[in-house]
């Protein structure tokens, strides 16, 4: 039989290097084949034919940060649930199903609590959260 190391990661590395080689190959072909007539106007960023105003690297909506934060919470929780999920069936076959279920459900309830909190705070709305909190203040 084959040593385990060759079974695991070698095909992934091979596929990734094929992707990089394919990219370089395509790039090389386009360097050879494509015309090169650079001009200043051609390499301005596209802004509907107008002169670009300012840089695009500026401030952007704070909503994106909030989405990122909520994502991290959920992602970490689901990562932690994967090992439990993969042995759940085994525990059930061993007769420990109810025990595993209680622990699993209490862990998920934290997740549900999190999403309920975000929902209540209006963080799951894209534009309405500001207006919602305004209305709350007026009450």
């Amino acid at each position, binding site marked *: 039989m084959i040593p385990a190391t060759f079974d695991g990661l*070698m095909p992934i590395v091979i596929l990734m290097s094929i*992707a990089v080689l394919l990219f370089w190959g395509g790039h090389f072909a386009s360097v050879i084949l494509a015309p090169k007539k650079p001009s200043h106007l051609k390499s301005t960023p596209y802004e509907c034919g107008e002169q670009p105003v300012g840089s695009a690297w500026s401030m952007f909506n704070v909503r994106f940060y909030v989405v990122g934060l909520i994502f991290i919470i959920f992602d970490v929780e689901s990562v932690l649930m994967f090992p439990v999920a993969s042995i759940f069936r085994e525990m059930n076959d061993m007769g420990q199903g109810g025990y595993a279920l209680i622990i699993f459900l209490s862990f998920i309830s934290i997740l549900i609590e999190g999403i309920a909190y975000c929902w209540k705070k209006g963080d799951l709305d894209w534009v309405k959260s500001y207006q919602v909190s305004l209305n709350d203040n007026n009450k």
Partner: protein
Amino acid sequence: MNQTVVSYLSQYEFYDSLLALFGNNQGLLAFTIFLIVALIIVGLCATIGGLGTYAERKISADLQQRIGPNRVGPYGLLQFLADGVKMMTKEDVMPFTADKMLFYLAPMLALVGVFATLAVLPFSSGFAMADLNVGVFYLIAISSLVGLAVFLGGYASNSKWSMLGGMRGASQIISYEIPVTISILAITLLAGGMSFGTIVGMQKGLPINWFIFHNPFAFIAFFVFFTGALAETNRAPFDLPEAESELVSGYHTEYTGMRFGFFALAEYIEVFVVCGVAVALFLGGSNLPVDIKLDIIPIQIIEVVIFLTKTLLLYYVVIWIRWTLPRLRVDQLMSVCWKYLTPMAILNLVGCAIWLVVFNGKSMADMVFGH
């Protein structure tokens, strides 16, 4: 269930003679076999990705009562080759304000991320490149490289349209990763393992044994997974990162020529990968409807054909959805993900766990036909 293509081939006699040919260097032989199989898979997927663009245009033409591409080759079949050659001969323009390093890196990252996911796709019981014991976990992890590439492409271009597209793309991809991950979690729960070999091996036999029909929650989980996966690949009705009518072309506005071509190729292959994963997780994978004890290479080829047929049927559904439904608005997109799909996915997960304990791991089919 065989682990990889190399360990599958190693049970045959000709493997030993091959080994002798390579001077008993197992690593070299494994490398050669993996390289050949990788080239076959990459060639297959690049062709499917290329034909995907053709199919997209032809099916959309069909749905809109047009003819579609019919000039290049028979029925316009060689259109994608003509497109590829055209892209290669177009000038590569880079905005002078762009971050050159990242601008160059972004399409490569998209391609690497998509190609790396091909490694765990279970084409048949013996013809998978790597059957990692953390299969689905690896898939989720590595496929987020594409989201990174989308954001990097948008950021590095330093164009307002690209930036907006990249921001939207990043927030959409990470948001929809949650329902997808939790749906996959439900399947992990039912299968009792994260490797694709285990998951596909549990669904042997008739369609009634597929995980989609295991219990009502798994049935809903499939649709949650499929919707989320559509959004993760930036397909309509979730194609906001590249919405033509509002963002010009989104994160690849500034990309021209071959660099744009690689983004497009990565997107089409990613749709194929996502369909393949949906088939493997929910729709029985490459299993034959009858249980054959005989393990010979022709059976493997039939399994590959079954897997590809199911995947391409799902691919057709994806294109069909794209040309049927209108695009969502940004706030609708976010509320669909966080207020509908995520609670539904959590409910499915809880439902699957309770089903597993209450009915002692039996599926609906087991209870009806009484195994």
